[in-house]
């Protein structure tokens, strides 16, 4: 079952930490957001392979936006 990973805060995409095809463990950072001078990782909720990254570095995302999809 594919699973969407959503941003838990509003911020600017600071870093894409995983690319499509990468295997991640639960708790691994998939992307890192920057908000109010803090870097905040958006973590994989479970282990799996990254199917799609939906954002680019520098892009602003709102809380609840889908940033990536797990296979």
């Amino acid at each position: 079952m594919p699973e969407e990973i959503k941003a838990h805060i509003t911020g600017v995409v600071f870093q894409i930490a995983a690319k499509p095809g990468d295997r991640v463990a639960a708790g691994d950072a998939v992307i890192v957001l920057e908000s109010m001078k803090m870097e905040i990782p958006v973590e994989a909720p479970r282990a799996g392979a990254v199917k799609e990254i939906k954002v680019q570095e520098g892009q602003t995302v709102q809380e609840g936006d889908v940033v990536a999809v797990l296979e």
Partner: protein
Amino acid sequence: MFGTVLVANRGEIARRVFRACKQLGLKTVAVYSQADRGALHVRDADTAVEIGGAAARESYLNAERILDAARQTRADAIHPGYGFLSESARFAEAVQRAGITFIGPRPDAIRRMGDKIEARRLMSSAGVSVLPGSSGAVADVAGAEAIAREVGYPVILKAAAGGGGIGMARVDKAPDLAAAFAAANRRAQAAFGTGDLYVERYLERPRHVEVQVFGDEAGAVVHMHERECSIQRRHQKLVEESPAPGLPAATKAGLTAAAVAGARAIGYTNAGTMEFLVDERGGFYFLEMNARLQVEHPVTEEVTGLDLVLAQLHVAAGEPLPWPQSAIVQRRAAIECRVYAEDPAKGFLPSPGTIQTLELPSGEGIRIESGIEAGSTVSVHYDPLLFKLIAHGATRAEAIERLAGALDHCVIEGVRTTIPFLRRVVASAEFRQGRVHTQMLEQGAFNA
């Protein structure tokens, strides 16, 4: 004195400096990013210049744009506030080269205090005690291991170019050192452009106590007593007060003497702060020097009745310090709370958004320094400080009662704030008894 002062900052601190300028009859210039077009600090100034995009590097960190704005408005002095370019020696130099006065210390003092290893070495040679640790940058993990073995675990790794807790890591035992070193090195490299690290012994349950210092161009240096700033999250202060409750007289005398000696050793001019850690036995160690006006300066102003920003303007204009040491007395008690757009229920995660409702307290012994109003947008691009609430009284108990009442009267809708957390701090037995240390939050104190 100057004719026109440009403030290279935003929010409450820009407004604070404008207020002082107006008292002296000086013209004021605001700079602002596209995100701050409707901001209060822009309206406060006589003239305002848009300097670039919302991202700080395009605007408030863009030295060229700021200098262009200063030339265009014929400003003859620039106040950097805190954060942004305030501790950039290169910016201070560029300001001077443009024939404009930088309201702050000399560039070489900024540079030497900005290099935390150099600052540690300088203070040590001025007779100020520092924590046991490396005398310079450690080249690699093996070098860090050798120092850690010598001073004993736990140790803390710190970035030479550090600040704000970035690139800092506590290491409890030797097997953890390699991974912590790599991570701290990477983070320091990304944030500061240099990955240099140094090692210090890690103190358990220390207090953070700092001393306000002030120097003038003739070489006079005074201290303005201490501030207790132990309640922190991610090495960032949340509550500050003066006098520091329960600080032994000998420790206090040692701290102020060390701060003045340290400032003299580097020929420090204008306002600065020497930060120390104080251990459970009253021993103290130099942490770093902030070569600028600090967020928590109103605490010192309320306690002493003296205006630090006015003094900054006078001293930057080449005048002597407005007060001798004997006139700087702790007459009252004052406590500051920083109200941030952060959610204390979620580990202080940022909470940007639009302020829908804002009701701020007022009354005897209450001072507010705010950069926001109802309708303000709290942007992801900047520091989350919304406003500072300062309560003061004849005694600490009176200041606490006023603070508790004021916190109960704050109403903010639209973003989550640190107010629920601050109310718990002020109600706690630990805070009321002055039993505070820098690791309280990590240890779960003040949890809901």
